[in-house]
């Protein structure tokens, strides 16, 4: 970064606006270099993988790609992933609202510890999360043995996949709601209560309108992660084709069988879902920035 122009006497007074630079800005050369560096870095690291998903999927043409998504196992994987996401999403929303209400509307000891516990899943490896669920509910554990005996298996079955998905997406909604609700304080709810509204009515008519965009934002993050979760699900699902193989698991199985077009076609479909959530999330950031947690406003 050259600062020569800053020290040149009379540089700021010179009549050439093209060479004039505010002393609080970098030189044009430095700016251009930084923009090129970061944009090309992102192009190599992020855009290239995104593009290659689609080019590999279409390597044998559209017909082959679409056909590979049409068979029974692929259809079952798509249905399973959508089902799991549809179950995990409301569970996380309910938990997030309850946790945020508890944390922001009441004062109690150990609040910081509770928040740490809620954030815990973010710092646990998804594979370790899956391992924990296998150890708790697996056929040779106490609880798992009883459940299997009563024909309610959790591990290597859909409940286990739901549990693993909820684990890895656990903090998303709560983390979005807590800062927003902290900022809004309790005054509006207290006013409504004084006026005789019931607790549910206060939540429904006062709190919910204030937090709906943040709730939607957290739910979107949760959805994106739930659809794509691999590590935790890989451990608990048992990878039974047509039964417990989600879309990411199916991608792995197809890829390991050298069925590149089929693997990348499934990946392209999943990428499509991911891009959709990203698009909605960006739209929220642009249109409802003031209703989101402060770190999403830009």
């Amino acid at each position: 970064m050259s600062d020569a122009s800053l020290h040149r006497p009379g540089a700021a007074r010179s009549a050439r606006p093209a060479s004039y630079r505010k002393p609080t800005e970098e030189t044009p050369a430095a700016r251009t270099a930084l923009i090129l560096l970061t944009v090309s870095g992102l192009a190599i690291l992020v855009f290239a993988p995104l593009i290659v998903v689609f080019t590999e999927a279409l390597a044998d043409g559209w017909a082959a790609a679409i056909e590979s998504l049409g068979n029974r196992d692929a259809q079952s994987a798509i249905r399973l992933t959508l089902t799991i996401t549809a179950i995990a999403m409301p569970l996380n929303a309910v938990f997030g609202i309850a946790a945020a209400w508890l944390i922001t509307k009441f004062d109690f000891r150990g609040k910081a510890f509770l928040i740490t516990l809620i954030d815990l899943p973010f710092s646990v490896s998804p594979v370790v999360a899956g391992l924990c669920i296998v150890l708790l509910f697996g056929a040779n554990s106490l609880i798992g043995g009883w459940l299997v005996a009563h024909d309610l298996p959790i591990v290597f079955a859909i409940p286990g996949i739901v549990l693993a998905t909820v684990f890895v997406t656990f903090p998303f909604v709560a983390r979005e709601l807590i800062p927003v609700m902290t900022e809004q304080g309790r005054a509006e709810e207290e006013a409504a209560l004084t006026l005789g509204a019931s607790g549910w009515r206060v939540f429904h008519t006062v709190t919910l309108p204030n937090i709906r965009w943040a709730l939607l934002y957290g739910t979107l993050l949760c959805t994106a992660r739930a659809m794509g979760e691999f590590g935790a699900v890989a451990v608990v699902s048992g990878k039974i084709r047509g039964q417990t193989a989600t879309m990411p698991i199916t991608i792995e199985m197809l890829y390991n069988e050298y069925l590149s077009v089929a693997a990348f076609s499934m990946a392209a479909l999943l990428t499509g879902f991911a891009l959709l959530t990203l698009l909605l999330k960006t739209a929220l950031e642009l249109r409802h920035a003031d209703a989101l947690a402060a770190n999403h406003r830009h």
Partner: protein
Amino acid sequence: MPGLGLSAGITLTMLSIVVLLPIGALLMQGAQFGLANIWDTVHRERVWAALFLSFRMALFAALFNLVFGVLLAWVLVRYRFPGRRIIDAAVDLPFALPTAVAGIALTALYAPNGVFGSLAQQIGWKIAYTQWGIFLALVFVGLPFVTRTVQPVIEEIDPEVEEASATLGASRSHTLRHVILPMLTPAALTGFALALARAVGEYGSVIFIAGNIPLRTEIAPLLIVIQLEEFNYDAAGAIGIAMLLMSFAMLLVINLIQIFSRKRIGHV
């Protein structure tokens, strides 16, 4: 305020079933297996190499993301250029893109017959199926953390601070190094720690590109999966506990950084 019982009930029940009881089951398994046995398992050459590899590669990737993330945040907040909005939205792609998809896409690009892989091959640089591949995958998954924590802080910097520094005769680079950078440090470190925690446990994006050669490119989470496939729950649990301890240590560091920087700067 109503709803204490209900909200506490839902929160604690779900927290227990989803998070606390499963983690408790892991710790119980470890307690039954015994500390000495856990240590023996972790100390086996293959396990030790995998744990060390996971941590070392995560550290390198997080360091890369620390530097790149701060630069990217600066460019996105301070500079105006065509396509800035798209670039800004694309920063979140690694969060949105499923890890398995990222894994096979990176492998397709950097394998010896891939677009970038064949270029690297010409100068004798092998990326996929080496530790470089692991590094690349971990850079990918950790990319957004630092940028997203630093961006809001740059937005809030009062322009008067830079103006004051300039009027007092500081060169631009001096201002950047001694005025701006200290303000960004706490947020950057938080982002760094988050990226590190994420990378240590990362599985999906790594296993496709790593090659998974024992002692060389085999990461710790994969070792857990292998032990589970052999129904060796004790060994899987032991490695799991070692990884959990690593995560807790990092969580502690994140919190200490935040407490420390709140005291010094006033906010993060």
